[in-house]
C-alpha cells in the first residue's frame, strides 16, 4: 500500500497525540476495558481457557489487523456460546466488536479485521449459555497505528 499525503498527515497527527497523552490515555483505557468486561459478564471477572484468540504477533498496519476467535463448545441447544466480545485496551475506545452466536452457528468461530492504535493487548471474552465467562489476551505489536489514519 502506498501512503497518500492525506494518510501520512493523519498518521503523524495520531503519533503526536499519543506522545502528548500516551501514559494518561493508557491508564484510562485499561479502566474502561475492565468496565467493559464487567458490563459484558455481569460483574464477574472471566476465567481462562476455552477461548482462543488468533492474532498476528506483529501488525505492520494498524488499520487492518486480522483477528480470529474460536471457542471450544459443542454448540448444542443446552450448551453453546452466546456471544464473544473483542476489546483492544490501547484504543481510544476499547470496544471493537461483539459476535452473537446461536445454536445454528455450528461452531463458535469468527474472523474480522480491526483497527489498533498502537502496540497493545487484544482481549476476547466469551459468554456461554450457562452464564460462565472465559477470556483470552494476546499482545499485538503495531508498527503504524490505525488511530488517525
Amino acid at each position: 500500500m502506498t501512503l497518500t499525503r492525506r494518510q501520512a498527515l493523519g498518521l503523524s497527527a495520531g503519533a503526536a497525540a499519543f506522545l502528548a497523552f500516551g501514559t494518561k490515555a493508557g491508564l484510562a483505557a485499561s479502566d474502561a476495558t475492565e468496565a467493559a468486561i464487567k458490563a459484558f459478564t455481569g460483574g464477574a471477572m472471566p476465567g481462562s481457557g476455552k477461548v482462543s484468540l488468533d492474532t498476528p504477533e506483529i501488525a505492520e498496519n494498524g488499520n487492518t489487523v486480522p483477528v480470529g476467535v474460536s471457542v471450544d463448545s459443542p454448540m448444542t441447544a443446552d450448551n453453546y456460546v452466546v456471544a464473544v466480545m473483542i476489546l483492544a485496551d490501547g484504543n481510544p475506545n476499547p470496544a471493537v466488536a461483539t459476535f452473537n452466536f446461536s445454536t445454528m452457528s455450528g461452531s463458535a468461530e469468527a474472523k474480522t479485521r480491526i483497527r489498533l492504535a498502537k502496540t497493545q493487548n487484544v482481549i476476547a471474552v466469551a459468554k456461554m449459555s450457562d452464564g460462565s465467562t472465559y477470556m483470552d489476551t494476546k499482545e499485538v505489536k503495531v508498527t503504524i497505528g490505525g488511530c488517525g489514519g
Partner: protein
Amino acid sequence: MAAPKPRVKVPKKASKGEVITIKTLISHPMESGQRKDKEGNLIPRQIINKFTCEFNGQTVFSCDMDPAVSANPYMEFSAKVEESGTFKFTWVDDDGSVYETENEIAVS
C-alpha cells in the same frame, strides 16, 4: 461516497448437518469519528454498527461493531445447515440505511 456494495461467499451446495463457512465483506469507509480534516475539525463518525445473518428467517449470527472495525468490514463465521434455504445478510449504517443481500443454498 459510493453506495456500499456487499459481497458474500456462501457455498452453493452442502450436505445436511454440515458446518459451512460464510465470508462477507461490504465496501464502507467506517469513519471512526477520531479523525480530523485539514482544518482540524473532527470528521463525524459514520460506521456500520450492526451486521446480521439470517437463515430462513432465523438469526444465525450477528455482530455489533464499534469504530475499531476496519474500513470495508470483513466477517467470517460458520453456520450449520439442515435444509435448503436462503441466507439473508443485513448491514445497518449509523445514518439508518440498511444494506441487504441474499444467497441460496441447496442442501442434500
